[in-house]
Protein backbone atom coordinates (compact mmCIF):
# COMPACT_ATOMS: atom_id res chain seq x y z
CA UNK A 1 0.00 0.00 0.00
CA UNK A 2 1.34 3.43 -0.96
CA UNK A 3 0.79 6.68 0.89
CA UNK A 4 1.75 9.56 -1.39
CA UNK A 5 2.74 13.00 -0.17
CA UNK A 6 0.76 15.88 -1.73
CA UNK A 7 3.54 16.79 -4.20
CA UNK A 8 3.89 13.33 -5.78
CA UNK A 9 0.28 12.23 -5.49
CA UNK A 10 -0.96 10.57 -8.71
CA UNK A 11 -4.49 11.91 -8.11
CA UNK A 12 -7.53 10.06 -9.40
CA UNK A 13 -5.82 8.67 -12.50
CA UNK A 14 -5.08 4.96 -12.52
CA UNK A 15 -2.61 5.39 -15.39
CA UNK A 16 -0.62 7.96 -13.39
CA UNK A 17 -0.72 5.55 -10.45
CA UNK A 18 0.78 2.76 -12.59
CA UNK A 19 3.59 5.11 -13.60
CA UNK A 20 4.12 6.24 -10.00
CA UNK A 21 4.54 2.67 -8.75
CA UNK A 22 6.53 1.56 -11.80
CA UNK A 23 4.08 -0.80 -13.53
CA UNK A 24 4.01 -0.16 -17.28
CA UNK A 25 4.71 -2.06 -20.48
CA UNK A 26 7.53 -0.88 -22.77
CA UNK A 27 6.85 -0.33 -26.48
CA UNK A 28 8.45 -2.87 -28.84
CA UNK A 29 11.62 -1.76 -30.62
CA UNK A 30 11.00 -3.25 -34.04
CA UNK A 31 8.01 -4.07 -36.20
CA UNK A 32 6.21 -7.22 -35.10
CA UNK A 33 3.34 -9.23 -36.51
CA UNK A 34 0.46 -9.94 -34.13
CA UNK A 35 -3.23 -10.88 -34.37
CA UNK A 36 -5.47 -8.08 -35.59
CA UNK A 37 -9.07 -7.47 -34.72
CA UNK A 38 -11.27 -6.11 -37.49
CA UNK A 39 -14.59 -4.44 -38.25
CA UNK A 40 -16.68 -2.45 -35.78
CA UNK A 41 -19.53 -0.01 -36.40
CA UNK A 42 -21.48 2.32 -34.15
CA UNK A 43 -24.47 4.48 -34.88
CA UNK A 44 -26.80 6.88 -33.12
CA UNK A 45 -30.50 6.08 -33.06
CA UNK A 46 -33.63 7.34 -31.32
CA UNK A 47 -32.87 6.00 -27.80
CA UNK A 48 -29.09 6.34 -27.73
CA UNK A 49 -26.24 4.60 -29.51
CA UNK A 50 -25.71 1.10 -30.86
CA UNK A 51 -22.30 -0.54 -31.18
CA UNK A 52 -21.49 -3.73 -33.08
CA UNK A 53 -18.39 -5.67 -34.03
CA UNK A 54 -17.52 -8.97 -35.67
CA UNK A 55 -15.72 -11.70 -33.71
CA UNK A 56 -12.74 -12.54 -35.90
CA UNK A 57 -9.08 -11.86 -35.19
CA UNK A 58 -6.53 -12.55 -37.91
CA UNK A 59 -2.77 -13.00 -38.02
CA UNK A 60 -1.70 -12.48 -41.61
CA UNK A 61 -3.87 -14.73 -43.73
CA UNK A 62 -4.84 -17.01 -40.83
CA UNK A 63 -7.79 -16.73 -38.49
CA UNK A 64 -6.36 -16.61 -34.98
CA UNK A 65 -9.58 -16.27 -32.97
CA UNK A 66 -13.21 -16.79 -33.86
CA UNK A 67 -14.80 -15.55 -30.68
CA UNK A 68 -13.06 -12.29 -29.85
CA UNK A 69 -15.15 -9.61 -28.19
CA UNK A 70 -14.19 -6.25 -29.64
CA UNK A 71 -17.23 -4.38 -28.40
CA UNK A 72 -16.94 -4.08 -24.67
CA UNK A 73 -18.81 -2.31 -21.92
CA UNK A 74 -16.64 0.43 -20.40
CA UNK A 75 -19.02 1.30 -17.55
CA UNK A 76 -22.81 1.53 -16.99
CA UNK A 77 -23.34 4.15 -19.68
CA UNK A 78 -20.54 3.71 -22.17
CA UNK A 79 -18.79 1.19 -24.36
CA UNK A 80 -15.69 0.83 -26.52
CA UNK A 81 -15.28 -0.94 -29.83
CA UNK A 82 -11.73 -1.62 -30.96
CA UNK A 83 -10.01 -2.46 -34.22
CA UNK A 84 -6.27 -2.98 -34.54
CA UNK A 85 -3.62 -5.10 -32.84
CA UNK A 86 -5.61 -7.43 -30.58
CA UNK A 87 -3.20 -7.62 -27.63
CA UNK A 88 -2.69 -3.90 -27.05
CA UNK A 89 -6.38 -3.29 -27.86
CA UNK A 90 -7.59 -5.66 -25.14
CA UNK A 91 -5.08 -4.23 -22.69
CA UNK A 92 -6.22 -0.71 -23.52
CA UNK A 93 -9.85 -1.68 -22.90
CA UNK A 94 -8.97 -3.27 -19.56
CA UNK A 95 -7.02 -0.21 -18.49
CA UNK A 96 -9.79 2.11 -19.69
CA UNK A 97 -12.48 0.23 -17.76
CA UNK A 98 -10.33 0.31 -14.67
CA UNK A 99 -9.51 3.98 -15.15
CA UNK A 100 -13.21 4.91 -15.21
CA UNK A 101 -13.97 2.81 -12.14
CA UNK A 102 -10.88 4.08 -10.30
CA UNK A 103 -11.83 7.68 -10.95
CA UNK A 104 -15.38 7.04 -9.80
CA UNK A 105 -14.21 5.48 -6.54
CA UNK A 106 -11.52 8.07 -5.83
CA UNK A 107 -13.73 11.08 -6.57
CA UNK A 108 -17.08 9.67 -5.47
CA UNK A 109 -18.69 10.48 -8.84
CA UNK A 110 -18.44 9.36 -12.44
CA UNK A 111 -16.51 11.22 -15.12
CA UNK A 112 -18.69 13.09 -17.62
CA UNK A 113 -19.07 11.34 -20.99
CA UNK A 114 -16.88 14.00 -22.58
CA UNK A 115 -14.28 13.36 -19.87
CA UNK A 116 -14.31 9.64 -20.64
CA UNK A 117 -13.85 10.34 -24.36
CA UNK A 118 -10.85 12.59 -23.61
CA UNK A 119 -9.39 9.99 -21.29
CA UNK A 120 -9.50 7.37 -24.07
CA UNK A 121 -7.90 9.85 -26.45
CA UNK A 122 -4.93 10.15 -24.08
CA UNK A 123 -4.59 6.38 -23.92
CA UNK A 124 -4.58 6.08 -27.72
CA UNK A 125 -1.96 8.82 -27.89
CA UNK A 126 0.10 7.00 -25.27
CA UNK A 127 0.09 3.98 -27.56
CA UNK A 128 1.65 5.97 -30.44
CA UNK A 129 5.20 4.56 -30.06
CA UNK A 130 3.74 1.05 -30.27
CA UNK A 131 1.50 2.10 -33.19
CA UNK A 132 4.63 3.11 -35.13
CA UNK A 133 5.82 -0.49 -34.75
CA UNK A 134 2.62 -1.92 -36.21
CA UNK A 135 0.59 -2.17 -32.99
CA UNK A 136 -1.98 0.48 -33.83
CA UNK A 137 -5.20 0.56 -31.83
CA UNK A 138 -8.14 2.55 -33.17
CA UNK A 139 -11.19 2.59 -30.91
CA UNK A 140 -14.72 3.92 -31.19
CA UNK A 141 -16.23 5.27 -28.02
CA UNK A 142 -19.96 5.56 -27.52
CA UNK A 143 -22.17 6.31 -24.59
CA UNK A 144 -25.31 7.86 -23.25
CA UNK A 145 -24.74 11.38 -21.97
CA UNK A 146 -26.83 11.74 -18.82
CA UNK A 147 -26.31 15.51 -18.84
CA UNK A 148 -28.05 16.16 -22.16
CA UNK A 149 -30.00 12.91 -22.47
CA UNK A 150 -28.62 11.76 -25.82
CA UNK A 151 -26.34 9.08 -27.18
CA UNK A 152 -22.93 10.34 -28.37
CA UNK A 153 -20.19 8.79 -30.48
CA UNK A 154 -16.50 9.44 -30.96
CA UNK A 155 -13.86 7.92 -33.20
CA UNK A 156 -10.10 8.26 -32.94
CA UNK A 157 -6.98 8.11 -35.04
CA UNK A 158 -3.66 6.56 -33.97
CA UNK A 159 -2.32 9.88 -32.70
CA UNK A 160 -5.19 10.20 -30.22
CA UNK A 161 -7.14 12.59 -32.46
CA UNK A 162 -10.72 12.60 -31.23
CA UNK A 163 -13.68 13.27 -33.50
CA UNK A 164 -17.28 13.37 -32.40
CA UNK A 165 -19.63 11.85 -34.97
CA UNK A 166 -23.25 12.91 -35.36
CA UNK A 167 -24.54 9.89 -37.28
CA UNK A 168 -22.39 6.78 -37.40
CA UNK A 169 -18.82 5.54 -37.57
CA UNK A 170 -17.03 2.41 -38.76
CA UNK A 171 -13.49 1.25 -38.06
CA UNK A 172 -11.20 -1.62 -39.03
CA UNK A 173 -10.36 -3.46 -42.24
CA UNK A 174 -14.00 -3.93 -43.28
CA UNK A 175 -14.98 -0.36 -42.39
CA UNK A 176 -15.31 0.76 -46.01
CA UNK A 177 -18.04 -1.79 -46.71
CA UNK A 178 -19.68 -1.65 -43.30
CA UNK A 179 -19.60 2.15 -43.28
CA UNK A 180 -21.18 2.36 -46.73
CA UNK A 181 -24.05 0.08 -45.76
CA UNK A 182 -24.74 2.15 -42.64
CA UNK A 183 -24.41 5.39 -44.59
CA UNK A 184 -27.04 4.30 -47.12
CA UNK A 185 -29.47 2.92 -44.55
CA UNK A 186 -29.07 5.42 -41.72
CA UNK A 187 -32.03 7.68 -40.85
CA UNK A 188 -32.40 10.18 -38.02
CA UNK A 189 -34.41 8.76 -35.11
CA UNK A 190 -34.26 5.14 -36.22
CA UNK A 191 -35.94 2.72 -33.85
CA UNK A 192 -33.97 0.11 -31.94
CA UNK A 193 -34.91 -2.86 -34.14
CA UNK A 194 -34.10 -0.98 -37.34
CA UNK A 195 -30.73 0.04 -35.88
CA UNK A 196 -29.91 -3.57 -34.91
CA UNK A 197 -30.89 -4.80 -38.39
CA UNK A 198 -28.80 -2.10 -40.09
CA UNK A 199 -25.70 -2.82 -37.98
CA UNK A 200 -26.02 -6.57 -38.66
CA UNK A 201 -26.45 -5.93 -42.36
CA UNK A 202 -23.32 -3.76 -42.41
CA UNK A 203 -21.26 -6.48 -40.72
CA UNK A 204 -22.69 -9.06 -43.11
CA UNK A 205 -21.57 -7.03 -46.13
CA UNK A 206 -18.15 -6.36 -44.57
CA UNK A 207 -17.67 -10.10 -43.95
CA UNK A 208 -18.81 -10.78 -47.50
CA UNK A 209 -16.16 -8.54 -49.04
CA UNK A 210 -13.32 -8.48 -46.47
CA UNK A 211 -11.49 -11.71 -45.61
CA UNK A 212 -10.42 -10.38 -42.20
CA UNK A 213 -14.00 -9.79 -41.05
CA UNK A 214 -15.96 -12.74 -39.68
CA UNK A 215 -19.59 -13.30 -40.61
CA UNK A 216 -22.23 -14.91 -38.39
CA UNK A 217 -21.07 -18.46 -37.61
CA UNK A 218 -24.30 -20.44 -37.24
CA UNK A 219 -22.36 -23.72 -37.13
CA UNK A 220 -20.55 -22.75 -33.92
CA UNK A 221 -23.26 -20.38 -32.70
CA UNK A 222 -20.92 -17.36 -32.79
CA UNK A 223 -22.63 -14.08 -33.67
CA UNK A 224 -21.27 -10.52 -33.71
CA UNK A 225 -21.47 -8.55 -30.48
CA UNK A 226 -24.24 -5.97 -30.70
CA UNK A 227 -25.11 -3.70 -27.79
CA UNK A 228 -27.23 -0.64 -27.17
CA UNK A 229 -26.50 2.15 -24.70
CA UNK A 230 -29.54 4.17 -23.69
CA UNK A 231 -30.92 5.91 -20.61
CA UNK A 232 -31.36 2.36 -19.25
CA UNK A 233 -27.61 1.78 -19.60
CA UNK A 234 -25.68 -0.87 -21.49
CA UNK A 235 -27.71 -3.79 -22.88
CA UNK A 236 -26.31 -6.42 -25.17
CA UNK A 237 -28.53 -7.94 -27.85
CA UNK A 238 -28.78 -11.68 -27.22
CA UNK A 239 -27.68 -14.37 -29.66
CA UNK A 240 -31.21 -15.67 -30.26
CA UNK A 241 -32.33 -12.28 -31.54
CA UNK A 242 -29.17 -11.90 -33.67
CA UNK A 243 -29.67 -15.39 -35.13
CA UNK A 244 -33.14 -14.28 -36.26
CA UNK A 245 -31.83 -11.05 -37.78
CA UNK A 246 -29.07 -12.84 -39.69
CA UNK A 247 -31.52 -15.52 -40.80
CA UNK A 248 -33.70 -12.89 -42.40
CA UNK A 249 -30.69 -11.24 -44.08
CA UNK A 250 -29.65 -14.65 -45.44
CA UNK A 251 -33.09 -15.40 -46.84
CA UNK A 252 -33.26 -12.00 -48.44
CA UNK A 253 -29.85 -12.49 -50.07
CA UNK A 254 -30.90 -15.96 -51.24
CA UNK A 255 -34.09 -14.64 -52.84
CA UNK A 256 -32.24 -12.04 -54.90
Amino acid at each position, binding site marked *: *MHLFSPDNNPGSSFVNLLTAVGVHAPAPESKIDVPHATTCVALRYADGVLMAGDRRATAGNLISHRGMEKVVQADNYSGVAIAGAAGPAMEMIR*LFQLQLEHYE*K*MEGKQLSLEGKANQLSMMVRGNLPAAMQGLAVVPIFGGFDLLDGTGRLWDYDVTGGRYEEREFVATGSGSLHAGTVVKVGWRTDMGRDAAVALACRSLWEAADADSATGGPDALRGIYPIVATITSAGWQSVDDAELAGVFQSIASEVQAR
Partner: protein
Amino acid sequence: MSMPFYVPPEQQMKDRADFARKGIARGRALVGVQFDQGILLVAENPSSTLRKVSEIYDRIAFAGVGKYNEFDQLRQAGVRAADLTGYQYSRLDVDARSLANQYAQIMGQIFTHDSKPLEVEILVAEVGLTADEDRLFHILYDGTVMDETNFSVLGGDAEAISERMSSNFESGCNLSGALKCALAALAGADRQLSADDLEVATLQRGNGRRCFTRVVDADVASLLA
Protein backbone atom coordinates in the same frame (compact mmCIF):
# COMPACT_ATOMS: atom_id res chain seq x y z
CA MET B 1 22.73 22.86 23.26
CA SER B 2 19.63 21.80 25.08
CA MET B 3 19.05 18.10 25.68
CA PRO B 4 15.50 16.75 25.27
CA PHE B 5 14.03 15.36 28.45
CA TYR B 6 14.02 11.59 28.72
CA VAL B 7 10.50 10.23 28.30
CA PRO B 8 10.09 6.49 28.97
CA PRO B 9 8.56 4.58 26.01
CA GLU B 10 5.55 3.50 28.14
CA GLN B 11 4.72 7.12 28.80
CA GLN B 12 5.33 8.10 25.18
CA MET B 13 2.95 5.43 23.85
CA LYS B 14 0.34 6.26 26.46
CA ASP B 15 0.48 9.97 25.58
CA ARG B 16 0.10 9.22 21.91
CA ALA B 17 -2.78 6.83 22.49
CA ASP B 18 -4.54 9.37 24.72
CA PHE B 19 -4.06 12.02 22.08
CA ALA B 20 -5.48 9.82 19.32
CA ARG B 21 -8.41 8.63 21.45
CA LYS B 22 -9.31 12.19 22.36
CA GLY B 23 -9.38 13.19 18.69
CA ILE B 24 -11.54 10.20 17.77
CA ALA B 25 -13.94 10.70 20.68
CA ARG B 26 -14.74 14.21 19.43
CA GLY B 27 -16.24 12.79 16.19
CA ARG B 28 -19.57 11.07 15.68
CA ALA B 29 -19.88 7.29 15.63
CA LEU B 30 -20.44 4.71 12.94
CA VAL B 31 -21.86 1.20 12.93
CA GLY B 32 -21.23 -1.70 10.56
CA VAL B 33 -23.75 -4.50 10.99
CA GLN B 34 -24.59 -7.76 9.22
CA PHE B 35 -28.04 -8.36 7.76
CA ASP B 36 -29.40 -11.35 5.81
CA GLN B 37 -28.18 -10.07 2.41
CA GLY B 38 -24.84 -8.55 3.41
CA ILE B 39 -23.42 -5.73 5.48
CA LEU B 40 -25.01 -2.41 6.37
CA LEU B 41 -22.89 0.64 7.20
CA VAL B 42 -24.53 3.52 9.06
CA ALA B 43 -22.66 6.67 9.99
CA GLU B 44 -23.93 9.68 11.81
CA ASN B 45 -22.97 12.33 9.27
CA PRO B 46 -24.96 15.49 8.57
CA SER B 47 -22.87 16.25 5.46
CA SER B 48 -24.09 14.73 2.21
CA THR B 49 -20.84 15.40 0.35
CA LEU B 50 -18.02 14.58 2.77
CA ARG B 51 -18.32 10.83 3.02
CA LYS B 52 -17.38 8.55 5.87
CA VAL B 53 -18.41 5.37 4.07
CA SER B 54 -17.24 4.47 0.56
CA GLU B 55 -16.49 1.77 -1.94
CA ILE B 56 -13.04 0.20 -2.15
CA TYR B 57 -13.60 -2.74 -4.45
CA ASP B 58 -16.23 -5.14 -5.80
CA ARG B 59 -17.09 -6.66 -2.40
CA ILE B 60 -15.20 -4.34 -0.05
CA ALA B 61 -16.20 -1.09 1.61
CA PHE B 62 -14.33 1.39 3.79
CA ALA B 63 -15.64 3.40 6.69
CA GLY B 64 -13.71 5.86 8.82
CA VAL B 65 -14.26 8.07 11.83
CA GLY B 66 -12.14 10.82 13.31
CA LYS B 67 -10.18 13.37 11.33
CA TYR B 68 -11.58 13.57 7.80
CA ASN B 69 -8.37 14.35 5.91
CA GLU B 70 -6.59 11.45 7.60
CA PHE B 71 -9.14 8.73 6.97
CA ASP B 72 -9.79 9.99 3.46
CA GLN B 73 -6.09 9.61 2.72
CA LEU B 74 -6.32 6.03 3.98
CA ARG B 75 -9.43 5.44 1.86
CA GLN B 76 -7.60 6.59 -1.27
CA ALA B 77 -4.60 4.41 -0.43
CA GLY B 78 -6.99 1.46 -0.10
CA VAL B 79 -8.67 2.08 -3.47
CA ARG B 80 -5.24 2.33 -5.07
CA ALA B 81 -3.92 -0.82 -3.43
CA ALA B 82 -7.05 -2.79 -4.37
CA ASP B 83 -7.15 -1.58 -7.98
CA LEU B 84 -3.44 -2.28 -8.41
CA THR B 85 -3.77 -5.82 -7.04
CA GLY B 86 -6.81 -6.48 -9.22
CA TYR B 87 -5.00 -5.15 -12.28
CA GLN B 88 -1.75 -7.02 -11.72
CA TYR B 89 -3.31 -10.33 -10.64
CA SER B 90 -7.06 -10.87 -10.81
CA ARG B 91 -10.16 -9.27 -9.33
CA LEU B 92 -10.59 -12.42 -7.21
CA ASP B 93 -7.22 -11.82 -5.54
CA VAL B 94 -8.36 -8.64 -3.80
CA ASP B 95 -9.54 -9.36 -0.27
CA ALA B 96 -10.30 -7.45 2.89
CA ARG B 97 -7.89 -9.39 5.09
CA SER B 98 -4.90 -8.34 3.03
CA LEU B 99 -6.10 -4.73 2.90
CA ALA B 100 -6.68 -4.70 6.65
CA ASN B 101 -3.15 -5.95 7.20
CA GLN B 102 -1.72 -3.26 4.96
CA TYR B 103 -3.72 -0.61 6.80
CA ALA B 104 -2.57 -1.99 10.14
CA GLN B 105 1.06 -1.75 9.07
CA ILE B 106 0.75 1.84 7.87
CA MET B 107 -1.18 2.96 10.94
CA GLY B 108 1.17 1.14 13.30
CA GLN B 109 4.17 2.68 11.58
CA ILE B 110 2.72 6.18 11.82
CA PHE B 111 1.75 5.62 15.47
CA THR B 112 5.26 4.74 16.56
CA HIS B 113 7.40 6.78 14.18
CA ASP B 114 5.60 9.97 13.17
CA SER B 115 5.38 13.04 15.33
CA LYS B 116 1.61 12.63 15.64
CA PRO B 117 -0.50 9.46 15.48
CA LEU B 118 -3.53 9.29 13.16
CA GLU B 119 -6.70 10.38 14.94
CA VAL B 120 -8.83 7.82 13.12
CA GLU B 121 -10.41 4.40 13.40
CA ILE B 122 -11.39 2.56 10.27
CA LEU B 123 -13.54 -0.38 9.26
CA VAL B 124 -12.81 -2.61 6.26
CA ALA B 125 -15.94 -4.61 5.49
CA GLU B 126 -16.22 -7.40 2.95
CA VAL B 127 -19.39 -9.19 1.87
CA GLY B 128 -18.82 -12.89 1.24
CA LEU B 129 -20.68 -15.27 -1.04
CA THR B 130 -22.42 -16.54 2.10
CA ALA B 131 -23.09 -14.85 5.44
CA ASP B 132 -20.31 -16.94 7.08
CA GLU B 133 -17.77 -15.31 4.79
CA ASP B 134 -18.72 -11.73 5.66
CA ARG B 135 -15.81 -9.89 7.27
CA LEU B 136 -15.59 -6.82 9.50
CA PHE B 137 -12.03 -5.66 10.23
CA HIS B 138 -11.89 -2.85 12.74
CA ILE B 139 -8.50 -1.11 12.81
CA LEU B 140 -7.46 1.30 15.56
CA TYR B 141 -5.22 4.39 15.46
CA ASP B 142 -2.20 2.33 16.56
CA GLY B 143 -2.64 -0.42 13.98
CA THR B 144 -4.45 -2.90 16.21
CA VAL B 145 -6.71 -5.07 14.02
CA MET B 146 -9.88 -6.68 15.32
CA ASP B 147 -11.77 -9.25 13.29
CA GLU B 148 -15.33 -8.64 14.50
CA THR B 149 -18.48 -10.68 14.02
CA ASN B 150 -22.07 -9.50 13.53
CA PHE B 151 -21.35 -5.82 14.11
CA SER B 152 -18.65 -3.27 14.73
CA VAL B 153 -18.85 0.16 16.31
CA LEU B 154 -16.32 2.94 15.70
CA GLY B 155 -15.86 6.43 17.06
CA GLY B 156 -16.96 8.52 20.01
CA ASP B 157 -19.06 6.78 22.66
CA ALA B 158 -18.36 3.39 21.02
CA GLU B 159 -18.67 1.42 24.27
CA ALA B 160 -22.20 2.57 25.06
CA ILE B 161 -23.27 2.09 21.44
CA SER B 162 -21.75 -1.41 21.40
CA GLU B 163 -23.72 -2.34 24.48
CA ARG B 164 -26.96 -1.14 22.91
CA MET B 165 -26.08 -3.00 19.70
CA SER B 166 -25.46 -6.28 21.49
CA SER B 167 -28.76 -6.10 23.32
CA ASN B 168 -30.73 -5.22 20.14
CA PHE B 169 -28.93 -7.25 17.46
CA GLU B 170 -30.68 -10.30 16.03
CA SER B 171 -28.69 -12.38 13.58
CA GLY B 172 -30.35 -12.95 10.20
CA CYS B 173 -32.46 -9.79 10.38
CA ASN B 174 -33.40 -7.97 7.17
CA LEU B 175 -32.10 -4.59 5.97
CA SER B 176 -34.83 -2.58 7.62
CA GLY B 177 -34.36 -4.45 10.91
CA ALA B 178 -30.59 -3.92 10.85
CA LEU B 179 -31.03 -0.22 10.08
CA LYS B 180 -33.49 0.27 12.94
CA CYS B 181 -31.16 -1.58 15.30
CA ALA B 182 -28.15 0.54 14.26
CA LEU B 183 -30.14 3.76 14.48
CA ALA B 184 -31.44 2.98 17.97
CA ALA B 185 -27.91 2.17 19.11
CA LEU B 186 -26.42 5.35 17.61
CA ALA B 187 -29.14 7.62 18.97
CA GLY B 188 -29.41 6.18 22.49
CA ALA B 189 -32.37 6.76 24.77
CA ASP B 190 -32.53 10.54 24.76
CA ARG B 191 -31.85 11.54 21.15
CA GLN B 192 -33.80 11.24 17.90
CA LEU B 193 -31.97 10.78 14.60
CA SER B 194 -33.65 11.14 11.21
CA ALA B 195 -32.66 10.11 7.69
CA ASP B 196 -30.83 13.40 6.96
CA ASP B 197 -28.51 12.90 9.94
CA LEU B 198 -27.30 9.59 8.53
CA GLU B 199 -25.04 8.32 5.81
CA VAL B 200 -26.13 4.81 4.87
CA ALA B 201 -24.61 2.30 2.47
CA THR B 202 -24.79 -1.44 1.92
CA LEU B 203 -22.63 -4.22 0.59
CA GLN B 204 -25.22 -6.58 -0.79
CA ARG B 205 -24.88 -10.14 -2.07
CA GLY B 206 -26.37 -10.76 -5.50
CA ASN B 207 -26.01 -7.11 -6.46
CA GLY B 208 -23.85 -7.86 -9.51
CA ARG B 209 -20.09 -7.41 -9.58
CA ARG B 210 -20.02 -4.20 -7.55
CA CYS B 211 -21.85 -4.93 -4.32
CA PHE B 212 -21.56 -1.43 -2.82
CA THR B 213 -24.66 0.79 -2.92
CA ARG B 214 -25.41 4.09 -1.23
CA VAL B 215 -28.89 4.27 0.26
CA VAL B 216 -30.38 7.71 -0.40
CA ASP B 217 -32.26 9.62 2.32
CA ALA B 218 -35.71 8.86 0.86
CA ASP B 219 -34.99 5.11 0.90
CA VAL B 220 -33.57 5.35 4.43
CA ALA B 221 -36.78 7.05 5.55
CA SER B 222 -38.94 4.36 3.96
CA LEU B 223 -36.81 1.58 5.49
CA LEU B 224 -37.27 3.20 8.90
CA ALA B 225 -41.02 3.65 8.47
